[in-house]
């Protein structure tokens, strides 16, 4: 810079009026060379065998600004490799140039300082505390941030060079954020997934689930041929045979028993097009039993809502909120990147108020919290509402008066109300747990009134990539003129035929016990799946469909952002995109309106041309009123989370994610006082029973849980014998 006596670092010099900067002056070039020489002094010259080769910032800089030879002849320092977990490899720490970006990421974005720089000077090295592991659900971003080959991707290591990979855009099929992905492909195989920067959605980050789930795409469990069960044996058949079998079977059941004996269950990880064609097929057959809300248990808000439940605000605006009320959400594990945005907001002074049944560390300051059993969540909301109505001197709507009248706000409910009332940009958000709750509509109604009183944004985090899209695709039983059965009713009143789209009933449903019984009793179960799974036990036909990387489609994220994507690789084996399979089935069954040339035509039919869906979104409940305590549980009640790496078929088969601490075999957790009452020791094996089924798990004392509950994860094979995610559960010594 002109008139400065020394060269100045660009990254740490504020720009000022009239500054004259020379980036290629003799002085600047000399300084750059000097810095490069220092950086390279201890850096090993192992680029040919380094995984970062070809995408290494240091390599690029060395080529651009470094000297051609080193003047350093002394010994280079050696830093020992570390094992910091199954996702991030820290095998060549001698390559580390101690920039500490990984440390900063942990502190500023991840919320926990898991890596740090220990020792000093020549001996400084990046490590986790006493050879601990990095367990953050965002840890993969450190790989992207590392400018050298010190932190690399363990699953991807040594499997391809960056210049051999083609880079194709896609959208995450997992959580409801709709992260933008760059899927990297070699020889028609997905080798790696990286983020595409989108400030409005995932910024430049990806959660580990989005980043490493691709391993599940290449799983050995992939279904590659249509299969039919005949005489108890599975036979691989041609598509034509399988589809004829399905269409004949469906036609026969519709004819003999009636179309209402056909039900369809799809996961919210299916695309908009798939869900739309599925409901069109089912309705074309004359049934209205179609649902994608598999883990929901309270459907009383159906058709009483102004639109599809959504986030109620733009994702980017989450950072600007100054008061949060989070109801029933395993925020960090269910929505890793949204949690990070809430964390950013708290750094700017936002207050987080939490009403939930567990007290997992959110890695951010929580202003007020009420950790109560599921049965009491509505009461706590009523208390907050009452306290808030006093502050705002507002009269309450008649729909909530009955429940609000008898309650007296506790000190923490009062504190929450004070906090919310003092905010300027308030958000009241309901999590997955609140949506799966047996009193979901009550919680929604109370939260809605709280939001109205404090002028807050009001919304749902949304469980999966297409939780909003499912409503738009009309894959709900109340979308048509005639109302059908919802996901829960279809199982309670067993149907004769079930069409499963991506669904593994024992893992994806609210009540796996009931679901398996219904599947077992059905005459015909058609499973459209990318994987050979437990359906082999109860299904009659398995149709191999393509996961998100092998099909085109659209996901509508929780903020109502419709994002379409194209297939990145060819479908594996004989697998086909599900929308094509459903189209052919529609044609074979002579249902009109199944002549689509491409998935875009389906999308346009659903969304009416554009991608703006805002007119179809709406969280406001009408003609629902809250009642006092209608739900009683005797004895202990179950609290279930769906662990982060158990949410959908793809992640459940992603090998490296399954080795993380988040994917360890679930234990039953219980408050130590309850444990004492049961006369059990922490660590003991117990028998947990719900309805007809029971499982054996070890039980661990966890005093952060409220009294009267047992926390048992859902979505896991080990707990699939159990019943609903909420309700009574019996614990006894095994």
């Amino acid at each position, binding site marked *: 810079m002109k008139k400065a006596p020394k060269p100045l670092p660009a990254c740490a010099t504020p720009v000022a009026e009239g500054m004259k900067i020379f980036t290629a002056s003799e002085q600047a070039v000399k300084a750059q060379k000097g810095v490069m020489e220092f950086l390279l002094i201890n850096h090993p010259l192992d680029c040919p065998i380094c995984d970062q080769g070809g995408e290494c910032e240091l390599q690029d800089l060395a080529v651009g600004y470094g000297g051609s030879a080193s003047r350093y002849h002394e010994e280079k320092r050696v830093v020992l490799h570390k094992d910091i977990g199954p996702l991030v490899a820290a095998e060549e720490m001698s390559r580390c140039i101690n920039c500490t970006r990984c440390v900063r990421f942990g502190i500023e974005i991840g919320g926990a300082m898991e890596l*740090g720089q220990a020792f000093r000077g020549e001996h400084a090295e990046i490590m986790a505390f006493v050879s601990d592991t990095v367990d953050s659900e965002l840890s993969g971003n450190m790989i992207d941030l590392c400018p050298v080959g010190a932190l690399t991707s363990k699953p991807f290591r040594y499997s391809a060079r960056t210049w051999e990979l083609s880079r194709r855009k896609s959208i995450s099929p997992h959580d409801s954020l709709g992260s933008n992905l760059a899927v990297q492909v070699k020889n028609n195989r997905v080798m790696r997934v990286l983020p595409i920067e989108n400030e409005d959605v995932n910024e430049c980050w990806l959660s580990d689930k989005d980043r490493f789930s691709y391993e599940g795409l290449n799983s050995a469990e992939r279904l590659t041929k249509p299969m039919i069960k005949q005489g108890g044996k599975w036979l691989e058949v041609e598509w034509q045979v399988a589809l004829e079998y399905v269409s004949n079977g469906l036609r026969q059941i519709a004819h003999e028993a009636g179309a209402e004996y056909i039900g369809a269950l799809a996961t919210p990880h299916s695309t908009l097009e798939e869900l739309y064609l599925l409901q069109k097929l089912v309705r074309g057959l004359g049934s209205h039993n179609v649902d994608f809300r598999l883990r929901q248990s309270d459907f009383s808000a159906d058709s009483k809502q102004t639109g599809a439940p959504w986030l109620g605000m733009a994702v980017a605006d989450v950072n600007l909120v100054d008061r949060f009320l989070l109801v029933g959400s395993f925020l960090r594990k269910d929505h890793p990147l949204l949690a990070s945005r809430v964390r950013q907001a708290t750094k700017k002074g936002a207050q987080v108020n939490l009403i939930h049944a567990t007290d997992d560390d959110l890695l951010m300051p929580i202003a007020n919290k009420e950790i109560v059993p599921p049965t009491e969540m509505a009461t706590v909301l009523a208390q907050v509402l009452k306290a808030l109505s006093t502050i705002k001197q507002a009269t309450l709507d008649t729909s909530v008066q009955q429940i609000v009248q008898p309650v007296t706000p506790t000190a923490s409910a009062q504190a929450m109300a004070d906090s919310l009332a003092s905010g300027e940009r308030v958000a009241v958000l309901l999590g997955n747990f609140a949506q799966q709750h047996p009193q979901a509509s009550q919680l929604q109604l109370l939260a809605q009134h709280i939001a109205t009183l404090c002028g807050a944004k009001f919304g749902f985090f949304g469980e999966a990539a297409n939780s909003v899209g499912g409503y738009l695709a009309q894959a709900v039983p109340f979308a048509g003129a005639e109302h059908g059965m919802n996901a829960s009713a279809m199982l309670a009143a067993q149907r004769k035929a079930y069409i499963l789209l991506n669904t593994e009933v024992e893992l994806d449903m609210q009540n796996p016990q009931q679901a398996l019984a219904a599947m077992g009793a059905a005459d015909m179960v058609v499973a459209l799946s990318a994987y050979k799974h437990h359906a082999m036990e109860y299904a009659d036909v398995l149709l191999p469909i393509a996961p998100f990387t092998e099909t085109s489609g659209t996901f509508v994220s929780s903020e109502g952002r419709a994002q379409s994507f194209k297939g990145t690789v060819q479908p594996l084996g004989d697998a086909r995109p599900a929308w094509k399979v459903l189209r052919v089935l529609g044609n074979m069954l002579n249902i009109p309106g199944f002549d689509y040339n491409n998935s875009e035509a389906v999308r346009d039919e659903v969304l009416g041309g554009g991608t703006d869906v805002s007119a179809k979104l709406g969280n406001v409940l009408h003609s629902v009123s809250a009642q006092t305590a209608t739900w009683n549980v005797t004895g202990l009640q179950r609290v279930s989370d769906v662990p982060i790496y158990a949410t959908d078929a793809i992640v459940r088969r992603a090998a490296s994610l399954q080795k993380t601490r988040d994917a360890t075999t679930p234990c039953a957790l219980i408050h130590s006082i309850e444990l004492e009452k049961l006369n059990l020791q922490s660590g003991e094996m117990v028998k947990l029973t719900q309805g007809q089924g029971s499982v054996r798990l070890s039980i661990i004392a966890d005093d952060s849980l409220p009294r009267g509950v047992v926390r048992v994860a859902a979505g896991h094979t080990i707990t699939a014998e159990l019943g609903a995610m909420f309700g009574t559960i019996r614990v006894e010594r095994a």
Partner: protein
Amino acid sequence: MLSEQVRAKIDRELKKYPPDRKQSAVMAALRFVQDEKGWIDTGDMVDVAAYLGMSQMGVYEVATFYNMYNLKPMGRHTLTVCTNLSCQLVGAMETLDYIKNKLGIGVGEVTADGKFGLREGECQNVCDEAPLLMINNKKTCGHLTKEKIDQILAELDKE
């Protein structure tokens, strides 16, 4: 678990800083732990981290950065001999060798009876007294000669 005395000392230290800057007391907290038991193990760092509401790794960074923290047992009396330039010019290395021979231990080691530990240290800012050593990071003894070292060791041995 931090002892009651250590916690009381940390609490007093915390009054010097704003309530949302509790981690400012980390260096003092580690010092109190070391004063009490002679060294700091990883469990102590975890306890300090919990007490000050900071990350465990953050405490580890501090503890490993400063060389006056003992990360392993260093005997009842830790002798730290300054080996920086001013001391070296007037025979710090000879002083160090003499102590090594006398105690029969090397730098970073502890005598078999656990009484003495020996370390190399950095400048104590009293170069006019060189060569010098420090006892338990508290007491500086300068103008060292063989006789003076013998005398210091004998006195410490009696304690």
